[in-house]
């Protein structure tokens, strides 16, 4: 579930529901195209609703870009598990992955739009978060 364009910030979508994560990724692809590295993950390790650190780490790897990765999450556990995953990354990557405080679907589309224009990670995060501002 990815297309690699080094240079643009990667987007990772994390939802408790794999269907929501995949659907949000579909929206990003349709609205923004494939100019940004994109990956999604959802569900616990047994395939039920939830999130899991291994899945998030894999999604970060898939969407990896030298410009960094912005993660969009839905509810509490998705955020906590994403922060855990970021801490488990190799040290040189850790500072280049940010979890955004934004609604998962709208945030993903806006973050990807910002990224597709070549904006840096901080700007991508800011744009997504303006939804809550």
């Amino acid at each position, binding site marked *: 579930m990815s297309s690699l364009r080094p240079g643009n910030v990667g987007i990772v979508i994390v939802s408790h529901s794999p269907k929501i994560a995949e659907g949000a990724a579909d929206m990003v692809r349709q609205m923004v195209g494939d100019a940004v590295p994109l990956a999604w993950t959802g569900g*616990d*390790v*047994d395939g*039920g*609703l*939830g*999130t*899991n*650190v*291994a899945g998030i780490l894999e999604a970060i790897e898939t969407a990896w870009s030298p410009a960094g990765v912005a993660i969009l999450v839905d*509810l*509490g*556990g998705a*955020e*906590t*598990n994403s*922060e*855990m995953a970021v801490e488990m990354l190799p040290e040189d990557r850790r500072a280049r992955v940010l979890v955004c405080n934004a609604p998962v679907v709208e945030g993903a589309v806006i973050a990807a739009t910002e990224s597709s224009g070549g904006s840096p990670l901080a700007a991508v995060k800011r744009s997504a978060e303006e939804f809550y501002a």
Partner: protein
Amino acid sequence: MSLDRVARERLVRALAGSVIEHADELTSLDQAIGDGDHGLNMKRGFEAVLATLPGLADKSLPEMLKAIGMTLVMKVGGASGPLVGTFFMELGKALPEQPSRADLVAATEKAIEAVKARGRSEAGQKTLLDVLVPVHAVLASGGDGKAVAAEAVQAADRTTPMQAIRGRASFLGERSIGHMDPGSRSASLLIGAAVETLEFEVNT
């Protein structure tokens, strides 16, 4: 305190058993104010921990605790995975192989600080910290195993009238009042199991 291999395995089995046996209770507590998956998630995590026995108990106490924490982080699935997992991982990092009581007090304090940071939370917000923090206070002030275990049970009970500020239950606002926090209950079960095993070691 020195735990040999047999004692370490007994500790792991007691911790896992306490959560697995109460999975239905944890789930029903979570159905009242959360998303109803706490029992299932914790059971999955501790079954995964059990699956790493007997090799797990071959590790030193600090390494064993770190491994338990990592398994919980990877397998639990909800927010409790990183929270409870972080507690075990940090405890393992901070404890020497043969900890004194003072080592245990210092290490649990570090582990609690790490849980606070992970959850960006403090005691008083209807989370597992409402058990960890008061239990640590009893331990730090010299309380014996019985006092520690009793405080764990009472502290979980005291979350019932609290209003949730962090976690899924906070969405309910005042409606979270009147139900025990499931994360506090599982923390209390784990502490009870740990105390029981360690007392057994001290007394035999």
